[in-house]
């Protein structure tokens, strides 16, 4: 697995893929989808697909692939090695969603949540397999959100494929287990060797599992909080763990889609407060109130100053 393409720019989403085995282009194939790194506040989320001819399902079982969560890291690396060696009939592809991609998606003006991002990534990978000429007949997916809805969505998009969405699919179908191993191995490697784009001096890489409840991760987040910028791109800003820390420890930043309450907000939106209609409408007690600045200036947000 060559992580080079991602490591040259780890701020964006990146696809890595194996060669497409020739048999996959002629024989009916099955495909499994799974993801790694959904929960952590640190590092990327990796989506993996694995595919092989339906007739090779048994060979996959013989490799003893199992749910990646039940395996130790060394075992996963070992199994990935075996999968990669079986390249005459097993193919894989990965989509690495950088933490920065996750942050910017979830925090943009039109919110794009993790479920939607996950679904779209999975769909993108299935499409990639189809575009590469893999003869897909069966797709197995570990669910994200309600299984029935997800299954319906995928079946509609890929009408010629039999789609099976199940919770815990990674322990039910070997092809999904294989996909989960690919994803998990990729994530582990990326997190371990993270290239910080930021100049942070001596970065201490002891950030634990990256999950919000890991004390090591929490300590690391506290230590590397910059009052102005918050965190390096390694951190998912959209996670409430990160947000809470920034709210309490960093400088307050106001965006124009922040919600504000009350009189001041109304004034900002150039609404008139209800009260202004009720108060005596004398007007003109203020010297400036009679003068209306010309629209050339107001349209350009230009104003005169009395002090600096």
């Amino acid at each position, binding site marked *: 697995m060559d992580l080079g393409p991602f490591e040259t720019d780890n701020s964006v989403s990146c696809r890595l893929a194996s060669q497409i085995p020739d048999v996959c282009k002629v024989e009916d194939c099955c495909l499994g989808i799974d993801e790694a790194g959904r929960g952590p506040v640190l590092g990327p989320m990796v989506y993996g697909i694995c595919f092989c001819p339906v007739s090779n399902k048994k060979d996959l079982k013989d490799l003893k692939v199992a749910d990646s969560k039940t395996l130790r890291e060394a075992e996963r690396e070992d199994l990935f090695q075996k999968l990669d060696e079986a390249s005459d009939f097993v193919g894989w592809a990965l989509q690495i969603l950088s933490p920065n991609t996750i942050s910017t998606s979830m925090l943009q003006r039109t919110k794009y949540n993790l479920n*939607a991002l996950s679904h779209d990534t999975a769909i993108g990978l299935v499409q990639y397999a189809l575009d590469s000429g893999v003869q897909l007949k069966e797709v197995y997916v570990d669910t994200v959100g*309600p299984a029935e809805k997800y299954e319906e969505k995928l079946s509609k998009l890929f009408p010629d494929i039999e789609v099976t969405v199940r919770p815990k699919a990674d322990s039910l179908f070997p092809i999904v287990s294989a996909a989960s191993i690919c994803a998990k191995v990729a994530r582990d490697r990326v997190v371990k060797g993270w290239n910080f784009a930021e100049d942070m001096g001596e970065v201490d890489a002891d950030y634990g599992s990256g999950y919000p409840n890991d004390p090591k991760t929490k300590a690391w987040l506290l230590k590397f909080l910059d009052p102005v910028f918050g965190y390096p791109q390694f951190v998912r800003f959209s996670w409430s763990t990160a947000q809470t820390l920034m709210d309490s420890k960093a400088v307050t930043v*106001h965006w124009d889609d922040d919600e504000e309450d009350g009189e001041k907000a109304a004034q900002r939106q150039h609404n008139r407060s209800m009260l202004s209609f009720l108060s005596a409408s004398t007007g003109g007690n203020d010297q400036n109130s009679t*003068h209306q600045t010309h629209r050339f200036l107001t*349209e350009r947000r230009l*104003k005169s*100053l*009395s002090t*600096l």
Partner: protein
Amino acid sequence: MASMKKRAPREQNDSWVVIAADSVVDTHETDSEPAFVRLRNPSTDATCLYMLGAGDVQLYEVKAFEEDFHSWFVGQTVQRDGRLLFITPMDPLYLMLPYLNKAGKEGKFQPVDQIVMDEEFPACSRLLSCTHSLASLHHIAEEKEVGSLKFHRYSQEKTMSWLKKKVERTVVALRKKNISVGEGVKSTTYVRVKSEYQEEDYLRYAHGLISEYISEDLSKALLKHLQLPELTSPKETEPPSKKRKLSDKPVEAGDDYTKFNSVDFSRKPPKKMTAAQKTLAKADKTGMKTMSSFFSPKVKAEKK
């Protein structure tokens, strides 16, 4: 979760982001530095910030681009104040005009250094040292020379023709810069394909701009001088008051709402959402399970 953010009051800065012509900082052969001065704004009569170039040879006006939610990154620092200051050349005559206008009411010829005086804004006498100040006084005042002394008296007629020229030159500039001058155009970025503006649109717009630099009385006089009729458009800021038309007929209800008034009569007003609920309302929840779905009895996973 997202707590209400409190805005700290604007703090005093000791630095600004400024766009200014090179001439502003050019201190050619004088010892003095360019300086900000406070002078009377001829249009609003209020204190306003201007700048005098080195040696008081040139007057500049100071305008600030100011919008909410802006900050600067300057070098290795962050500046909370996201303003952008523009320092642009200005005709000092505009600032002297109110003083001459006021003195002109006495109808006497006076030395200009006695006219342009203001206890509140002592810096105004420095306007007289600007390169063209004295030379351009004849645009707005009659001149009399007695020996080596010069005396001036405000002339409305001269002022009007001077201002008219200003308007005409502004029109030229507006055309050249393709400024949208028509009524009803709200956005500066919206550019019409065909320029369909009438000469009057331009004149009116230019008059409005020039009025930023003269008193309201002069603005009205100028409008007349330009032979533009006063617009009698309703004020934008105040919506027309809705008053029920009076009629002699007895008042009757238009609709009968009583038949729906039963149980629902004491319906509760909508509750105000908490900050957390608001944040949740903003989130993209597509494809997510509802909380209640975790508690309802399990539906058999069979499908057909």
